[in-house]
């Protein structure tokens, strides 16, 4: 099982539009006319695994979902705050969190995970494992077959090079995850992983301290960027004691945001908009740099089935409402919003990888 994103335009109807939109999304990292020539200026930072240069002096880390990265123009910008609006009835936000956290562990990035569960460490056991890449398998086949092929032997080196280049490029920044396999042990060893249960804390002050000290440990100097990840699940969940203190939560989010801006980390917060007041929800949405919402698709909705190809395989819709605009006018986001009105998360059983 693997997470797939299908981009489809919300407001457009013709297939011509779809191509145009896909094209726009793919061309995203190009940036405006003022962006620096990155290939010339990238000094040493470029080959840090898990990080990528973006326009306007920003750096990206991967969301763990290749298609979402593409839509967002490269991934989540370092220093940005990502908000996910949960569906009240389906736990699809957990899929996003899982991929986000797994990707971080694969890249050896420090992680802090907070949730209203009693034992948040248990969640680590559900993280997906990166998939063995297809290229790997085909290469094995090739080498086996090549023994019998004499004519093409001199081209072997070209094939080999190409393959390894592609494969490295992919595994370096964003992996495909197999949701059926738990993350292998060796990814956890020697990692900075912090799990916090928010259930019994009366306020968010202690957690704020923890985030602050976590962020101060993530290296900030240019030559040594790793990129930390903070994942907070269901911030306003009613199990937590502070959940009726809206201003307390807002001020926590605000101070977290200001801490993030000075650090090389990304925080992702999920919250249930249906359990809080509209005013509060809107304030949270304004605080977000990148705003995403997930929604389940009802089963056997005939009209939707007609509208969407591959309806049977889809489990939900993911909409991108806002994209981080650090150091730039809203330009990117508006255009991006237009381009990716909505896309669907589908959990699809891929070809068997036993």
């Amino acid at each position, binding site marked *: 099982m693997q997470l797939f994103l299908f981009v489809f335009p919300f407001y457009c109807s013709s297939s011509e539009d779809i191509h145009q939109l896909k094209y726009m999304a793919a061309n995203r990292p190009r940036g405006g006319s003022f962006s620096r020539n990155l290939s010339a200026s990238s000094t040493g930072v470029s080959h840090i695994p898990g990080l990528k240069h973006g326009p306007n002096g920003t750096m990206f880390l991967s969301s763990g979902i290749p298609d979402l990265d593409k839509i967002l123009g490269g991934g989540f910008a370092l220093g940005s705050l990502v908000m996910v609006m949960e569906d009240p009835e389906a736990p699809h936000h957990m899929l996003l969190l899982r991929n986000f956290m797994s990707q971080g562990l694969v890249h050896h990035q420090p992680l802090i995970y907070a949730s209203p569960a009693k034992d948040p460490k248990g969640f680590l056991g559900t993280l997906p494992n990166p998939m063995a890449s297809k290229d790997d398998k085909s290469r094995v086949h090739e080498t086996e077959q090549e023994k019998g092929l004499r004519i093409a032997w001199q081209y072997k080196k070209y094939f080999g090079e190409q393959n390894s280049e592609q494969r490295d490029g992919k595994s370096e920044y964003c992996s495909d995850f197999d949701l059926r396999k738990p993350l292998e042990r060796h990814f956890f060893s020697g990692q900075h992983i912090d799990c916090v249960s928010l259930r019994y804390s009366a306020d968010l002050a202690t957690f704020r301290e923890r985030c602050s000290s976590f962020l101060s440990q993530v290296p900030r100097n240019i030559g040594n960027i790793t990129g930390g990840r903070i994942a907070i699940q269901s911030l306003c969940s009613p199990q937590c004691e502070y959940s009726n203190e809206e201003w307390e939560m807002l001020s926590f989010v605000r101070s977290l945001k200001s801490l993030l801006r000075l650090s090389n980390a990304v925080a992702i917060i999920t919250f249930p908009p249906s359990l809080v007041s509209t005013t509060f929800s809107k304030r949270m949405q304004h605080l977000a740099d990148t705003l995403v919402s997930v929604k389940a698709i009802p089963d056997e909705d005939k009209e939707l089935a007609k509208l969407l190809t591959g309806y049977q395989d889809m489990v939900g819709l993911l909409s991108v409402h806002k994209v981080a605009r650090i150091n730039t*006018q809203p330009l990117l986001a508006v255009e991006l919003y237009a381009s990716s009105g909505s896309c669907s998360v589908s959990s699809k059983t891929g070809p068997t990888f036993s």
Partner: protein
Amino acid sequence: MANAPPSNLLDEVLDGKGDAVFSTSSDDGYGGGGGGRMILVEDCVETSGAFVVHHLLKRSLSPHSSDVVVFLSFAHPFSHYDRILRKMGCNLSVQRDSKRLLSFDMLRVERLGEDSHSDRGKTSDDRLMALYGEVQKAVEVCSSNEGRRHITLIIDDVSLMEVDANGSSNLVLDFLHYCASLTSQFGCSLIVLNHDDVYSTMDGPNLLLQLEYLADVVMKVEPLATGLATDVHGQLTVTNKGLEDGSGKSRNKVHNFHFRIKDSGVEYFYPGSKA
């Protein structure tokens, strides 16, 4: 104290009837003359109004005038604005060094009053009062320095100020009232950004209504009602309040146009006139 020649529709609208917004030298007959105006910018989650603030910031710092800007930024660090305005052709760092821009970066840790232990006992009330004290001092110094230099006070954005004040909109309103009093005392202008949709479900008097009452110009940024488009990013409604039309009656003048945001600025045009 000539303003830069109007470069686009937004400037024309602001210049047309609102000379007092950006220069004290003209007497527009409003509030006994000399008093600056208050501009309220409203936006929503779908369409951010940040570009209007950037535009007004650049306008206030135009090289043709010697106006001073006091900038309270709650939403982004200074470097963010610096980078954006640089693309638009205005160097904030230089302006700050030449004392034309006084920036209060409210995202800095010491401003939030969390790390410093001496601040721990302070309530949000004290912090806002202290901030106002700083702003007032800055305005006083600027206005006494070189005679009648025009001062613009920009706040981005008020809803975050409410968060800092722990939800007490009365405190924020007090603060804004004080700032509004500066407009009559020193003739400075006040530009404030707030989010429309945060208050749309609130009953009774709320902060936004109070701000709309105080403001002379209300600019509302909205997405297109018909949905998303590639060449139009949204619409902007500018309401000039309380204009006298010769016969002594006052009326509101409303302008509506569309905009498209670009890296180095924003294109404004009347609905339907985009080629």
